[in-house]
């Protein structure tokens, strides 16, 4: 049995240790917010935070997660209250079809946790591993800038 934390709650799985974290999150744990795009680390749709660090969950063996802390897109909001990033993606057109959105939010969350005053280049670096085929990225960059401004104004976490 492999034990770890997901979105603050203790969870466990009897999956084989070499099973992908992505599959364990989506199937037995039912956290389908994390998407599978390419399955080879190119698209970022399966991004989650592992001990606060953004990773592609398609590249992580679940056996490597023993005792570790995982945050998926479902764990970002505080109850019904959206984070500044989620609000900005809704209000500024950062989300269109939605398939890249969970990964984008996770990658942007990791950025804003370490830097609440990012340049556009910092943002493009932070989301370079998250492919979007709808927005042309500019609306996403704008959304993340708007969220960063909101975080700075409130002095709150991303």
């Amino acid at each position: 049995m492999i034990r770890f934390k997901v979105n603050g709650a203790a969870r466990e799985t009897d999956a084989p240790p070499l099973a992908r974290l992505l599959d364990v999150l989506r199937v037995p744990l039912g956290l389908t917010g994390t998407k599978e795009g390419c399955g080879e680390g190119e698209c970022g749709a399966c991004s989650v935070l592992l001990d606060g660090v953004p990773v592609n969950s398609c590249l992580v063996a679940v056996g490597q997660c023993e005792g570790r802390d995982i945050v998926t897109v479902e764990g970002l909001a505080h109850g019904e209250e959206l984070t500044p990033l989620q609000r900005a993606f809704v209000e500024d057109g950062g989300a269109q079809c939605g398939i890249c959105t969970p990964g984008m939010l996770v990658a942007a969350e990791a950025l804003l946790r370490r830097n609440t005053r990012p340049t556009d280049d910092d943002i493009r670096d932070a989301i370079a591993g998250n492919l979007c085929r709808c927005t042309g990225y500019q609306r996403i960059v704008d959304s993340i800038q708007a969220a960063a401004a909101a975080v700075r104004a409130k002095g709150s976490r991303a």
Partner: protein
Amino acid sequence: MSAYAPAGLERTEMARPKTIVEACRILAQAVRAKKTASLLAGGTDVIVDRHLMPVAKAHAIDLIVDVTGVEELVRISERDVGGERHLVFGGGVTYWQLRTDARVTGTIPMLDAMAKDVGAVQIQTRGTLAGNIATASPAADGVPALMALDGKVTLVKDGGARTVPLDQFFLAYRKTVLAPDELIAEIAVRVPKDGARVRWRKVGTRLAQAISKVALASVVEEEGGVITRARFGMASVAAVPHPLAGVRALVEGKSTKSLDRAAIDAAIDREIKPIDDVRSTGPYRLHVAKALVWRALAP
């Protein structure tokens, strides 16, 4: 039937050593028991290969040795070797560490620039230097950078260790001197002298998530206008990452101002044999390789 692909996944055991010594013992036992064992760190190759393996070719790995719990492997330290300053990276050091550790960014900014060009953040946080070396891809980014810095790898096994210069580590396409019971414990690189021209240039289709068409890392040191040391590491132009020893021999001891470009181009023609593949063509790669070497040598 298992819910997890590919079939047979549940036959693979995972060991999670905490120390290098323990990891080496586990590898030694596996080799003695004739088990197939594989080290696992960031998973950027192992997990993908395993998951996407065609069913017809699928073979069970008996044992995965996950080294992400070995704290010794993620250390970065400094060492004096023969009066020269070196940085020493544990094999498990990630590209993200190269981008964020002040000892690296402040000492060898070229490594920071290289790491920024590897995949994207989610790959940089997982991919490790030892993984990049062990998988022996001709298109590796980390390997040419470490090679240009006179990288030496320390290979450790149960009851022994040896040090191999990186330019002698690769034998042929995807073949290395690493034995099944060895792991790459550390990589030591020489810190270039102040004022050295230390450069990284990766030519790919886009800035992020690209595999190189050609990449070149270079260190050129000069005294009084004369090149006293030239080191290169070039990717995607041969079966293995290439040190361009012929170019090095041609330019060391020469004045930067009197370098013979035609002779250098001819040396490159002799040394590398770039191929046509899905990313580029042989002739284009050769053209770019020559341009990059010339820029690396320029003041």
